[in-house]
């Protein structure tokens, strides 16, 4: 049992009330260690996004318990007063599309997060540049997002997810728009970053190309998770 990383116990989420109520999550258990990348797969409508939204503190679960790092964030109710700051400091998000801010150049897209957390501009940009270097896009630091290729944009969005050194990264189909080679490259980077920054990463996907790369996979069906060993095809 890891003390850090992500731990979810008996998480439930019910949408709506009364006759139209829908139980999207019916007691999910899940655990991801720091440095680990796990896959979360399941058919459409099985509750993957709902789980990410609960973990990402943008919707409130109905019951259960969630721990991020050393902090219990939910235990039959939010345990954190400022969810906005929680999202900013403790959780990194990677989306299907990069969703970069189109009017900020690459470095400020990444540096925005430390800036929002109150760090000075220069320091924020320094941290951003470090990550851009780690992700091999530092040479595009002054470019606008629209001038980048899809793969470069996705790497910038990973840099943004990592810049505040969150213990957790939630990735929602991060490889969907990419071809097989680039998709694998993104997963390789996520694995590398997970190890380098001791981050627990959950990747929601139904991308056949990348499923064999996970060492552990959570299958979600009908609102419940089931843990499986993956092929864990290493990149080394």
């Amino acid at each position, binding site marked *: 049992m890891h003390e850090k990383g992500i731990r979810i116990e008996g998480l439930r989420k019910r949408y709506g009330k009364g006759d139209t109520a829908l139980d999207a999550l019916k007691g999910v258990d899940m655990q991801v260690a720091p440095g680990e990348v796990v896959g979360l797969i399941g058919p459409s409508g099985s509750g993957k996004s709902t789980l990410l939204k609960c973990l990402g503190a943008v919707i409130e679960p109905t019951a259960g318990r969630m721990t991020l790092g050393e902090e219990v964030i939910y235990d039959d109710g939010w345990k954190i007063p400022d969810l*906005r700051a929680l*999202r900013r*400091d403790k959780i990194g998000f990677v989306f299907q599309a990069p*969703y970069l801010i189109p*009017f900020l150049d690459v470095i400020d897209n990444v540096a925005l*997060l430390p*800036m929002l*957390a109150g760090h000075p501009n220069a320091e924020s940009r320094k941290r951003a540049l470090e990550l851009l270097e780690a992700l091999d896009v530092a040479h595009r630091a002054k470019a606008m997002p629209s001038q980048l290729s899809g793969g470069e944009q996705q790497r910038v969005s990973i840099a943004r997810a990592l810049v505040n050194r969150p213990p957790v990264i939630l990735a929602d189909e991060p490889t969907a728009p990419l071809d097989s080679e680039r998709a694998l490259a993104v997963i390789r980077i996520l694995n590398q970053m997970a190890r380098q920054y001791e981050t627990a990463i959950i990747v929601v996907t139904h991308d056949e190309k990348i499923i064999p790369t996970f060492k552990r996979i959570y299958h979600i069906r009908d609102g419940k998770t089931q843990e499986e060993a993956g092929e864990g095809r290493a990149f080394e």
Partner: protein
Amino acid sequence: MISLAGRDILHSWGKFVFTGVGLGLLIGVTLTMAGVYRGMVDDAKVLLDNSGADLWVVQQDTLGPYAEPSSLYDDVYRTIRGMPGVDRAANITYLTMQVRQGERDVRAMVVGVVPGGPGEPGQPGYLIAGRQITHSHYEAVADVATGFKLGERIQIRRNHYAVVGLTRRMVSSGGDPMVFIPLKDAQEAQFLKDNDAIAQQRRRTAANPAFNRPGTPGLLDAVLASQSINPYINAVLVQVKPGFIPEEVAKPIRRWKRLQVYTRVQMEEILIGKLIATAAKQIGMFLVILAIVSAAIVAFIIYTLTLGKIREIAVLKLIGTRNRTIAGMIMQQALGLGLIGFVVGKISATFWAPIFPKYVLLEPGDALLGFAGVFVICALASVLAIRAALKVDPAEAIGG
């Protein structure tokens, strides 16, 4: 922290500049409308200043001579001159009409003045060329805005006049330039009947047994003579002796001469409060509509720009941007748009104001008020967009 609004404006500057210019032209029109009103007020004041009068003596129960017709006998001024405190008194007539010069004609206010020395009430105060009227017939001093040149011959009704002097900023309260002619000519121009009418009147008088009495020779001639003279004027302009209060001088004239007398303050009140009041309301109406249209444009643009950024706003919220920061971004963009608009508006108003046929007076105070108004309007207009942005759910960034 960086300025999100500033970066967004720089990024899509084309959109902002285009909209800003459009808004700016609208603001320019608004400032010009205010300038038109100020110009009218200024014209009225200049009219009063340039008449050189402290008191206006007019027909009883009228708001003459500018706001209502007024007619007095032209010998009244003599008795007024004898009243205590009166320094100078001069007859004057005003008549707005078309003045012809060659092929063209110009709308002008024809002012009949007593030829006399400088400082005489009613005289054009200063000339930019030529000289004052010295003869009692067929000379004219024209405002340059009429376009008349020195030495040109102009026609007022049946008579021709030589332009002997040019003046400037002498306009009626309606903004028409003035043409000064000798009082006698002006009386004729205003009150003279045409030849046919005179002939007809003579016939009718001669046919009237009351006037044409064989037993009273000379009566018909006397009646005819009295009918052909025009002893009327519109007002007597009075200058008060130093040390006298105009209102105190006015009182006995009102009382003993049974005439209406207005002081400078009362005259201004008549011109601004009555004569141009409707025009002012008309302009006020325009200003209200322009303000609403400007607000609608800013609101629409900012709202559209914000809707185009819903996804980015959801991401910004998800990664922990405060609502306040997002609202601030939208508000600043609206204000930025207002700033561009105001600058463009001020420049264009300054540029086109002199081309207007009537005087457009752009007052810095109005510009300042306009500036504040633009900012308030932009701030209000951004409320709609801010509400839309605050409603965005950060969960939208994660998708379905």
